[in-house]
């Protein structure tokens, strides 16, 4: 039996909605609120049923606009690397600081996307991030936490 990917996504959404609904019923409300016309679990319960309804409908009804994706033409490797770099960036930004991690994130992303013009890569990382930091921190007064710059005494 051939099931298209949209139907599989709908099935996953159906399961997700069922889980959401189950969790909604588990929400602990205050005793005096238990039989109230509306409590903290009322809206989520309706949402759970709505999710089941629409995903169920998508599963049952014919799919006149079937989407076919040519997976072989997709660039999974570069996308995965980029996501991985972003995760590493997210993991280190607080400990090392905004300036260094962001600049390194940009250089790594440029590199893995195939760029090799090192001067341009440098200009669009360290000086660019410094200018952006100045705009946020210096001009717009938006606080940026940066232990690295604090450690070397650049940032107060």
């Amino acid at each position: 039996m051939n099931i298209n990917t949209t139907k599989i996504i709908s099935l996953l959404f159906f399961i997700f909605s069922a889980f959401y609904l189950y969790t909604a019923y588990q929400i602990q409300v205050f005793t005096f609120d238990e039989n109230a016309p509306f409590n903290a679990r009322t809206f989520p319960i309706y949402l759970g049923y709505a999710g089941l309804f629409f995903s169920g409908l998508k599963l049952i009804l014919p799919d006149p606009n079937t989407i076919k994706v040519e997976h072989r033409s997709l660039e999974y490797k570069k996308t995965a690397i980029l996501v991985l770099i972003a995760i590493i960036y997210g993991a280190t930004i607080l400990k090392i600081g905004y300036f260094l991690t962001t600049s390194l994130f940009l250089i790594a992303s440029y590199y893995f996307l195939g760029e090799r013009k090192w001067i341009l890569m440098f200009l669009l990382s360290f000086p660019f991030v410094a200018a952006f930091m100045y705009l946020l921190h210096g001009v717009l007064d938006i606080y940026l936490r940066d232990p690295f710059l604090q450690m070397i005494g650049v940032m107060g």
Partner: protein
Amino acid sequence: MIEGILIGLKTALTFQNILMVMIGCFFGTIIGMLPGLGPMTAIALMIPITYGFDPATGLILMAGVYYGAVFGGSTSSILLNAPGVPGTVATSFDGYPMAQQGKAGKALAIAAWSSFAGGTLAAIYLLFMAPSLSKVSLSFRSPDYFALMILGLTAIAAFSSKGQFIKAMMMVVLGLMLASVGQDSLSDITRFTFNNMNLTDGISFVLVVMATFAMSEALTIILKRNDPTAAAKQVSLTELGSIKIDKEERTKMLKTIPRTSIIGFIIGVLPGAGATIASFLAYGMERNLVNDEEKEKFGKGSVHGLAAPETANNAACSGAFVPLLTLGIPGSGTTAVMLGALLGFGIQPGPRLYVTNPEIFWSVIMSMYIGMVILLILNLPLIPYIARILAVPKNYLIPLILFFSITGIYVMSFNNFDIYLMIGIAVVATFMRLYDFPMPPLILAFVLGGLMEENLRRSLLLSDGSWTFLWDRTLTACILATTIFIIGWQIYKTVTKKN
């Protein structure tokens, strides 16, 4: 009203706010010209910058980005037949043939003047309509608001993705589910947090917008091996020709602009409809209204055919602000992003905004007009130069989009968890985009989730748990009947299409 206009002018004409409109228009034009990156991405990327401003300035900046993005979309439609945003698809029908005839400059000028006139007329309609609508909407009660929100969500699902209504409704439900994470607003009971303290305050709106638009668009470009900047490289090589419009063309535009601005504005006001439908409807209407000789020219470089969608899509952009400013209910994904940003500033748009924050209400309306003037004066002559800026290779563009997205979340929460959550949502959104699951309904639902629950809570408590509140008032019943009709019609279309 005169007093309000003066307040608005005073706020909008400060040096800082004029500068923000200029920056917004310029930045929006650049993003709008890139196929695939529309106004929502442009506005989402601007949100972190707006944190440093007061609400009026922040909203003025975002409004400038919105108009700039629509204008930028027209430019790529005309020069490359590659609309940057869906609202400018109809522009390419006659704009691109005109450009191919060596009249690209003229086509751009007609588009710019039509956009200017459409936006200006719509700003005037808004000027007169919004205060009266605000007064009318004060009579709205919780059941009406609840029904209106359901209608808005259904309408955006029906219109945002052709033939994908059920998928869009699934995204609506997903958006509402995401909005339900965190503390319940009344009882403070935590929901769906799974004992994770980071989720107690719920999922941030900026996080969801950045993940589903900016970040997932960047990932989609890499995944699909698209190069949005390739188009821009061609633009810089294009010979634009003269931007002068002759008397005959002016006469044609003068006939088209007033009528299409009205239709554009009305469509813009309707929830979910927006610039895309407005431009197509205006194009179709104009084709029926002109004489046979002009009708023949449609699709081959007609002035009417170019002016109509351009006027209508800009008028619709202004019209979309009506439900946002008067009811507090956004009618489109873009205005939903603006609502989210306003809520972030601690401002609740709605009928009371007119009374409590008149400077915001009026300065936004006045800045729309200023934005139009700036687009006309600055952007039109600057198009070839903007196009050159755009010729930045995608290898630089994509990391920069990711950088802006992650920075947006970082400055907001200083929390690793939020960055991981954003990346996770972006990956899921990228995968869902591949299968045509539309994102604007998710954003609108996410923004409206809290308000919807609040209004349902009030309605149910007032009616002692009975659902009769849905048909007790004529207005509520009418809104709900329209919603049921849309859902029924869309499901009927899905069923019959196959058979």
